[in-house]
């Protein structure tokens, strides 16, 4: 516990020092790095929640986000409302969609080996993305919004400021989740289930119900994020796939069940990627940062735990 704290503090201060250096050399690197990190963290948090409490790797995570984005898109174009407003109905619909997906499929494989859940959710991902492809075609869609181009100029540097909404969103998700898990009865029960499902069952917690609620809640967060997603990105049926992988990797970096560290992992990744991409002709190698970091973090954690 004590050591963990030291590592956390060391990590945070290293990130801070790096940030200050960046801020002096090239402020845009920091700006874009934080914005990237916000997107990573916001989409990884619901996966961290599901992985930490329900203990399943949901390979349909990104596809659910994609479905949410399409839902939000159609709500916006049908009712002529802004995506940020549509986040509310989308979140609610996704809560129930998550509930349905969980109850009809995933819940039945909780007893089966871990791998079965993996393939099952892979099947769910396939059904979701291919259904959307049938309904909406592969043609990318994007709502044109003026405010996403909002810009700030400091000295002679101009940068987009709208994207700061993502770090804010991620912080909001984290705050809500932590409040939920620490302060509410349901949340406390859920934490207990996450740590020890068998024990929780013995003390009378309804584990199945907890799983259902947590999965639905995560789906709701995915839904809200989906609405924010369409403000910045084009959507098409395959758009979600990469986010499953990225979220999974971030959760693995953060450590399962450690929600706040998801933000830390996202920051490290966002800043590192932003740094590499600012180097001329470095963009081709930026995915290397992602995968290299994952391996380094996972390996160093494994060495540390061995000692």
């Amino acid at each position, binding site marked *: 516990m004590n050591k963990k704290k030291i590592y956390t503090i060391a990590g945070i201060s290293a990130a801070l020092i790096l940030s200050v250096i960046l801020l002096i050399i090239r402020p845009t690197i920091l700006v874009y790095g934080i914005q990237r990190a916000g997107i990573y963290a916001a989409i990884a948090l619901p996966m961290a929640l599901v992985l930490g409490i329900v203990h399943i790797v949901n390979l349909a995570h990104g596809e659910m986000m994609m479905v949410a984005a399409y839902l939000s898109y159609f709500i916006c174009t049908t009712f002529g409302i802004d995506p940020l407003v549509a986040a509310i109905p989308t979140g609610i619909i996704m809560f129930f969609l998550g509930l349905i997906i969980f109850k009809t499929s995933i819940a039945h494989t909780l007893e089966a080996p871990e791998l079965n859940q993996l393939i099952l959710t892979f099947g769910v991902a396939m059904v979701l993305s291919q259904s959307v492809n049938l309904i909406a075609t*592969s043609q990318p869609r994007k709502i044109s919004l003026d405010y996403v181009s909002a810009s700030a100029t400091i000295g002679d540097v101009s*940068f987009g400021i709208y994207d700061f909404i993502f770090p804010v969103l991620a912080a909001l998700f984290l705050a809500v989740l932590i409040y939920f898990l620490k302060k509410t009865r349901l949340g406390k029960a859920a934490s207990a289930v996450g740590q020890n499902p068998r024990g929780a069952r013995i003390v009378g917690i309804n584990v199945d119900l907890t799983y259902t609620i947590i999965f639905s809640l995560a789906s709701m967060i995915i839904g809200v994020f989906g609405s924010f997603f369409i403000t910045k990105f084009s959507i098409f049926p395959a758009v979600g796939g990469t986010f499953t992988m990225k979220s999974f990797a971030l959760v693995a970096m953060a450590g399962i069940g450690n929600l706040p560290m998801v933000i830390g992992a996202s920051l490290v990744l966002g800043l590192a990627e932003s740094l590499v991409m600012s180097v001329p002709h470095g963009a081709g190698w930026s995915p290397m940062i992602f995968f290299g970091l994952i391996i380094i973090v996972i390996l160093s954690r494994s060495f540390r735990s061995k000692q």
Partner: protein
Amino acid sequence: MSKKLSALTMMLIVLFSSVFFLTSCKGKEEKPAEPIKFGGIWPLGDITGDQAAKAAQLVVDELNANGGLMGRPVELIVIDSELNPEKGAAAVERLATVEKVDFFVGGMSSGVHLGQIPALKKYKKVTMWTGAASSTAETAVGEGQDWYFHLHPWDYNQGNSYVEGWDDIAAKFSNISIDRWFLAYEEGPFGSASFAATQTLFSDMEIDGEAFQSAALGGGDYTAVLQRAKDYNPDVFIWAGYAADALPIMEQAKAVNFTPPLFIGAPPGWPSDFGDSALAENVTLYGMWAPSISKVSAVSKKFQDAYEAKYGETPATYFAPLGYTSIEIIAKAVEAAGSVETEAVIKALKAIQYESPLGETISFSPSNVISNQGFRNQKILQWQNGNQEVIWPFEFATAEPAYPFTR
């Protein structure tokens, strides 16, 4: 051995054998008036392949409504390539040996095509390809393949075409300056090939470039590359990515306050709603075709009207007129030859002057490697008032270029 076991074994054997018999027997039943068969391979899950296949079917319907080809009905069998080389190659085998088609049409994605080329070479049927820009694919086809007809321009054709276009434009409009270029290219084969081609072709100019990860492949953040471009301060900025990148690039360019005098987008297709955005105004683009060409080409108008009448949607990608071309050009050659024999059709195709729904009239001639290349030219277009207007070649021009690009 238990009864259940043997029953199960029998069932499995029956299942497997029936699977193979079904697949191999289907299509063997012969009809009295044997149709002329076209085999099409497109990725049906993608809008390009979907619309190409629909446009191809349109020609077939038109031919049959007019009594078929040489008095024989025409049939089109389309198989999904699933954007997968193995599936694409299996489709060739199936069309050749099970469906026994007379002609191959189709194509979208160089990667899939690379996997299909060995199979196509085995059958050497007249093949009219609508996709694959990578010159690697051209090398794979190789020299002396008379049966192989390639409609889509190769990557270097496209590059040459731009050089020609911009030289023309700069000569005609003296205020337009094209000395300093910056190319933002997606890191896949499509973008990298564009960058390599542009670098060699515009070697007498100042040129720089930077890769980005396309949204289509999991990216979608262009701030770094835009920042680099802005620091470079080019006369011409081109991005070579996919449709999914189109609007977000414009939004992020605005956010970083990047306004080059010429802002060019070069994706293979545009999102249908791109024109609705205010940010689209005066964006220049490369393409083979745009709906506005119907203003200057009667053939294009006829195609577009027929397509809309049949499917109730506007063709959104140039793959639609290309798909149409692939069938119609063979049909015309068959009529001219009076035969479906490969040799005769190849001869007729080599001689054909075809007025295409993409605007220009094409004929086949050798390119760097292959013998029969169809289209070579790209068009330079510009978004004006929500429509793609042609600004070059001047013969198809529907509008004058707006310059410089402003917001």
